[in-house]
């Protein structure tokens, strides 16, 4: 299998996780645009990155943060969000966890903790790779991750007392 086919399959298999990751900063439409550009950039790499998935997450992160910083884009994003609200998770009948509750619990976390949880749970990225993506030490990432899990579990068990951590 050629590099391009391999990379294409890799990102296609993880597209939902990559999209969810981009939506930590962006509305659905902008997240899709950023993801599309990141995948295009990935497929242009010669040779391919050693860890293409971590590389793509990092590119998405940088692009999404840059995108979100622009004031004009922020106004555009707010309008787009108001126009088309899209959930982070699909509502599935057989899912053990309600999609809206999961999103609400995830939104309670601080930005960096939420980022780590998304990378670990849905991106299936190891702590060492996450540490490289978010520029923290692996032990810090692990500590933040376990604390975030506890916070989410507590929020899901006690829906009435949900307060966002900064």
């Amino acid at each position, binding site marked *: 299998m050629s590099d391009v086919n391999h990379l294409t399959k890799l*990102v296609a298999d993880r597209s939902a996780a990559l999209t969810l990751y981009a939506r930590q900063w962006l509305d659905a439409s902008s997240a899709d645009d950023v993801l599309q550009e990141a995948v295009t950039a990935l497929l242009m790499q010669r040779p391919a990155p050693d860890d293409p998935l971590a590389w793509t997450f990092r590119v998405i992160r940088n692009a999404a943060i840059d995108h979100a910083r622009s004031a004009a884009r922020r106004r555009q994003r707010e309008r787009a969000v108001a126009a088309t609200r899209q959930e982070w998770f699909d509502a599935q009948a057989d899912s053990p*966890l309600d999609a809206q509750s*999961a999103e609400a619990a995830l939104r309670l976390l601080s930005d960096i903790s939420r980022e780590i*949880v998304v990378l670990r749970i849905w991106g299936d990225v190891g702590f060492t790779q996450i540490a490289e993506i978010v520029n923290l030490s692996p032990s810090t990432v692990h500590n933040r991750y376990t604390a975030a899990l506890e916070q989410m579990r507590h929020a899901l068990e006690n829906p009435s007392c949900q307060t966002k951590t900064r």
Partner: protein
Amino acid sequence: MPDQNPLTPAQQEFERLLRGTAPSAGRLDTAAAAFNAGQRSSLRQLRVWRSATALLLITTITPHLLPIRQTTSPTPMAPTFTTLTAPEPLQPQSLLALQQSVRDHGLDGLPASHPPALQPLRAKDFF
């Protein structure tokens, strides 16, 4: 790479619970991404070839268009000295000498002329 700090069973169970929630799929179009990547890569290669050609052209043509520059540092020129020598004495029969002689001494200053001796003409010279 295995993670160094294993999670507790309760945490692992909660991880499985969260993983059961599927994120919404985005609009990623991998075919379009692959096409754009190929197109941009070929454009990039084309730009590289164009740049290389332009550079080659410039390096080939420039020496013919620009005046040749002296590449070595100019050596200081040694001053040349011209030795002034006394003017040569005028020949007695030269025009300047005759003019000066007339100015100084008048017509008497002119040297005596020495006309060539005339040979007597004879009839046989004409026939």
